[in-house]
């Protein structure tokens, strides 16, 4: 068989490759669109047909991180020449950077929002995955009274669209002072991801043969040690996959972030659309914010790619 393919197999193989390429194209176009827009001058962002070839510039990023105001008249040549390069870019777009009394540039809130997003997404992912793994291990290895009912109950927390509970959650959060706090969103996202994490991790842990732990138990380890030394390394694939999913969910969440936060703990998603500006919408700033926002998920997934490909633990146990 090996090496010899029938005409039919060759055809299906090529058809599959073509299918993958089409799917890839459809998926990559929006990413290209956002990325290219993030580096376009404002006047090229909305041309019809779209401008594909242009000189990339970073003025959208300068705008993203600064507060600006509209210029009524073009600035004089002396002011223009005296300004730093990045401020000149803003002048070119018919705007000027707002300065405070001390002459310091007023920064926009994007940096802080981005850091908020990182703190909240990473912490809630860590909590959801670690609690989920422990819970899943318990359900997988011990006899739990009413196990099926418990698992169904855990799943049932995902059966309602989360936005349905947004208003009561908002009222409760305001009552207990969790409104506009990092911890508030962390709790919310952890709770939201936990059921998913438990279910996914249970599937992975069920697949790890009990004999590994039993061998460790007989060899003089406690169950806790066996869990950390044997089960965790074996479950790495599952943990990585679960972490990626939880991170993406927490990172992308928009509705609760919009309702539950307004300044201190606001994440990037509700902030980006607020930068569209007054008068003519400046899509390049939105694109720049979105482009930066895409990077952490891409990096996170890239770092875990080896764990996401299963196969590490195959072949070591005989069945």
């Amino acid at each position: 068989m090996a090496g010899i393919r029938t005409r039919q197999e060759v055809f299906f193989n090529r058809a599959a490759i073509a299918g993958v390429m089409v799917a890839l194209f459809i998926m990559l176009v929006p990413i290209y669109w956002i990325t290219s827009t993030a580096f376009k001058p404002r006047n090229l962002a909305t041309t019809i047909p779209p401008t594909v070839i242009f000189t990339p510039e970073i003025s959208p990023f300068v705008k993203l991180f600064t507060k600006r105001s509209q210029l009524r008249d073009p600035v004089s040549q002396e002011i223009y020449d005296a300004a730093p390069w990045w401020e000149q870019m803003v002048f070119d777009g018919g705007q000027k950077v707002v300065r405070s009394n001390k002459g310091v540039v007023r920064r926009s809130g994007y940096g802080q929002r981005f850091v908020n997003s990182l703190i909240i997404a990473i912490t809630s992912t860590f909590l959801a995955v670690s609690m989920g793994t422990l819970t899943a291990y318990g359900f997988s290895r011990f006899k739990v009274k009413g196990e099926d009912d418990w698992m169904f109950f855990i799943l049932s927390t995902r059966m309602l669209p989360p936005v349905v509970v947004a208003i009561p959650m908002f009222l409760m959060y305001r009552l207990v002072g969790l409104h506009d706090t990092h911890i508030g969103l962390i709790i919310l996202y952890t709770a939201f991801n936990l059921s998913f994490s438990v279910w996914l991790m249970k599937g992975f842990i069920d697949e790890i043969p009990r004999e590994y732990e039993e061998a460790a138990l007989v060899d003089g380890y406690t169950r806790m040690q066996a869990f950390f030394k044997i089960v965790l390394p074996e479950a790495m694939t599952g943990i990585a996959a679960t972490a990626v999913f939880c991170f993406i969910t927490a990172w992308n969440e928009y509705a609760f972030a919009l309702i539950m936060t307004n300044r201190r703990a606001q994440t990037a998603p509700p902030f980006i659309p607020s930068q569209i500006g007054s008068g003519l919408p400046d899509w390049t700033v939105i694109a720049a914010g979105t482009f930066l926002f895409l990077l952490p998920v891409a990096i996170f997934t890239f770092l875990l790619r080896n764990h996401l490909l299963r196969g590490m633990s195959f072949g070591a146990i005989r069945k």
Partner: protein
Amino acid sequence: MAQIELKNVQKFFGPVQVIKDMNLTINDGEFVVMLGQSGCGKTTTLRAIAGLETVTSGEIFIDGVAVHEKKAADRDIAFVFQSFSLYPHMNVYENIAFPLRAVGMSNAERDKAVKEVAEILQITALLDRRPSALAGGDMQRVAIGRALVRRPKALLMDEPIGALDAKLREEMRSEIKRLHISRGSTSVYVTHDQIEAMSLADRIVIMHDGLLQQIGAPDEVYLKPANLFVAEFVGSPVMNVADVVLETSGGQTRVRLGRGDAGFHFPAGLTNHLRETGAGIALGIRPEAVSLQHDAKDGYIPVETTNIEPLGSHDIVDIRLGDISLRARTESGFVSGEGQQVWVKIDPAQAHFFDRSSGLALRGQS
């Protein structure tokens, strides 16, 4: 090394009783094989000794110390799993060193112990490999190495070579025996393969439906089966078992097989003890105790062959005697084909009698 003692051990899984009142003493340095079909409770017994399974009632002692309440980690025994269960994320060296890391040994000592065990098992060249890169026999060697490295009080093995192919199984069997002889470790070995049991064991423990059937040396179990189950379970090909009727006249007993008229003469001394038991007696006779001849001789009965299994070193010949079928072991090529007439006799000295209702062996004073 240690003595292991089980006293009135019972184990229930829900309503199912898998170990029924087990009493067993395994002596220091002894190699005991627990033999039985799957689901007979042998593995559960082994896991109970190891502490991987709790017992419902009863006591387990290792070296006189009650351990049935202790955790597996505190019992100082080693366990070899059928699946080997080598940790896939560690290489061979780390796998063998793993039990030593639990006890906090110095690096140099640990290294020495691992290399020593690797030397004995001839896996020194494999120490850097991952388990997934090993062949079946080598996985098994590593699993045994991991069990031996700590010098545990006892070595428990659950069908350790059941997953290997036939040739390798034979090789590993003699290796395990060699290892046992050189180390003298108290070993309990679970298998459903009677050849493994016969070849390895000092004593065989035969279990069925959670009940101990017989404990004895291999030849004892083979030559003096305690009941019908043991008789039919041990030995390959299996023992012939047929219902018989006894007719005694003048110092001789005629043993009639099945409903036919044909019967064999037994010296009365061998059958005297059977009279009181009345009806429902089964005769057990191993194929090697059934002899065939080409010509009529005294005491031989004419029969027809129905099937021949040539096995190289010998043949197994099926013969029909009235309404029952017997298997005989002959030299190869002794009978050329089916439907041939031969004469058959059984060796009274190798005959076993059983009570049909209780299954127990009926034995005279001898």
